[in-house]
């Protein structure tokens, strides 16, 4: 009987440890001194390790911006590569703190998968890439085609909807990663490769002869890509949200990684700049950070335009135009909520 008691005590002890209240993500990250950022396993321009093994790309820079704002150093990031398949699990299970992984914001992901999305940092849409020699000009001519598609993505669902709506048939070829996609499309297993237009540009750049492939004009879906955090920690979600807004607003306000320190040294004429850079009122305190949070983020990776041009812009191998992703003042739809 005594032993049973001991067993009962052990059990109780175990359950006690389990009931430890969960600290906020911010405290966790600060205590750890490192931000765990969920990224892709490799999409050139968005997130990929370079030859020296350093992660680079559009999504990577947003991770670094958050790390800079929270921890003061854009290098204090541990990148957790995730496939399209396990990305949300990795985030939800607490292995990652924040996710920047070409992820489309949708209602079911927000509500049912228990994610909180950060502001959109890239407006994308799903397109099709096909060999020029096949002479196809519209996605509606793709009846009967074999289409390589990454499983577990919104594109998979859009594709099914698109073909169903247009009453044409296709053969889906399920692939797990972009590399597999390149191998299958390159090996002519499929006629068409479909994913977000930005991903297509990146994939096309990786093909043997990029000029032999065209991206069809149709964009069949809206793919607002943004970061995400777990449900239930509003403060942490706010941090992510306002770092992204700060990066976008910095471009609008003309703040760059070059001049940010200078502008933050003393209050400027423009109160918007002052609020963002913490020289007027302490906006940082509202999200649990110090006044310099945005300065560090911008200093680490630059404003939106700098990030874009460095990683996926027209001068890079990916060669994407700003298009929809221009500031609202330049005819795009990038529109950061005001920081005040």
């Amino acid at each position, binding site marked *: 009987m005594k032993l049973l008691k001991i067993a009962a005590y052990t059990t109780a002890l175990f359950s006690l*440890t*389990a009931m*430890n209240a*969960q*600290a906020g993500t911010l405290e*966790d990250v600060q205590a750890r001194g490192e931000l*765990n950022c969920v990224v892709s*396993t*490799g999409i050139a321009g968005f997130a990929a*390790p370079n030859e020296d*093994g350093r992660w680079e790309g559009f999504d990577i820079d947003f991770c670094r911006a958050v790390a800079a704002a929270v921890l003061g150093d854009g290098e204090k990031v*541990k*990148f*957790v*590569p*995730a*496939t399209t398949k*396990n990305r949300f*699990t*990795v985030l939800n*299970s*607490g*292995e990652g703190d924040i996710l920047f992984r070409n992820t489309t914001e949708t209602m079911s992901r927000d509500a049912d998968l228990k994610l909180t999305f950060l502001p959109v940092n890239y407006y994308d849409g799903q397109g099709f890439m096909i060999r020029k020699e096949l002479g196809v000009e519209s996605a509606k001519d793709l009846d009967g085609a074999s289409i390589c598609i990454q499983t577990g993505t919104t594109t998979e669902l859009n594709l099914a909807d698109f073909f169903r709506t247009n009453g044409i048939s296709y053969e889906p070829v399920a692939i*797990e990663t*972009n*590399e*597999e996609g*390149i*191998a299958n499309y*390159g*090996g002519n297993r499929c006629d068409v490769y479909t994913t977000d237009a930005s991903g297509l540009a990146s994939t096309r*750049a*990786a*093909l*043997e002869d990029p000029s032999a492939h065209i991206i069809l004009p149709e964009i069949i879906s809206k793919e607002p890509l943004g970061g995400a955090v777990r449900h239930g920690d509003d403060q942490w979600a706010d941090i992510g949200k306002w770092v992204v807004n700060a990066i976008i607003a910095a471009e609008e306000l003309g703040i760059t990684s070059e001049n940010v320190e200078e502008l933050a040294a003393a209050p400027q004429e423009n109160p918007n700049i002052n609020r963002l850079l913490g020289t007027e009122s302490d906006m940082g305190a509202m999200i649990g950070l110090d006044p310099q949070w945005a300065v560090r983020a911008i200093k680490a990776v630059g404003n939106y335009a700098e990030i874009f041009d460095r990683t996926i812009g027209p001068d890079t191998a990916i060669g994407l135009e700003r298009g929809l992703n221009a500031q609202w003042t330049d005819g795009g739809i990038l529109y950061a909520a005001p920081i005040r």
Partner: protein
Amino acid sequence: MTDTVQNYKPGEHPSLPPPSNTVGPIAWIRENLFSSPTNIVLTLVCAWLLYKVVPGSLNWMFFDAAFTGEDRNACKAVADGACWAFIGERLALFTYGFYPAEQRWRVNLSFILLIAAIIPVLFDNIPFRKYGLIYSALFPFIAGWLLIGGFGLEPVPTSEFGGLMLTLVIGVTGIAFSLPIGILLALGRVSNLPLIKMICVGFIEFIRGVPLITLLFIASTMLSYFLPPGTNFDLLLRVLIMVTIFAAAYMAEVIRGGLQAIPKGQFEGADSLGLKYWQTMRLIILPQALKISIPGIVNTFIGLFKDTTLVVIIGLLDPLGIGRASLADTKWTGLSTEVYLFVALFFFVSCFAMSRYSLYLESKLDTGHKR
């Protein structure tokens, strides 16, 4: 004829040479290749197969292959065959993964230490074998410290492990830990304590009933749910645990076979000597049972070693993963055959060596006590 002198005694006729058609290469060929119509057909079919496959493959692999070159096009310009330059350029990546370049001496040192640790296990006639074995048992921990760092070495995150080194890390850890766990599980399964037996049987049958890949998925997606909030332990560690318990369940079944082959008299003899349970097991039963199960144990090791490739599916970069990632490089697209053959060669050499060793052991340990 009649006037030939018989120069031997009756009954002692010297042996005549065998008929000329039963010795020599011709006879061998006739005996082994063309002894019956079926045999002739088989021989012809095999010869045709060889003729079809061998020259082409050899040409592709060696004679028409390019061993140097900047990229795929450079290869194709020189030769029509394989482009081994690709493997050459990526060899460091295949070996070390993303392990930091200036720290690679640690991996090399572990390779050397690994060889030193294997020797006392393989050969029983070397001096100081006892100490050698203690070292072998400690090796996984030494190598772990060397590779991960800490205590004076610069820490290297396990996410940078990759290539052959990752395969060896998983393989050696699995082998080192699955054997003791497997022995315990096997003892539990044949134990006469019903509850312990039930737990062990349940565990073994559950693990053996599901594919390793699902266990790896659980390790990569679900395991964190079962741990206290905020615990965050390394993906590689989780994979190691899963691979180890997977191999341990198979190991347990192999060893159980050995245990069941031990005649009851051995247990009774030990009892009559007044030995306790663990003494009986340690001194009498396990030495015999393990000896019987050695072929099975080595086969489990080979299986485990081959199964390490599955980690590529959950995103770890073993040689196969490195190969597939490298294929996405514009410079080298379309060279999958080279990658697959290279990785296959590595596994073939390792596993074939293991299976030969097991055969050698089997014949050496065969002391004629077969029942």
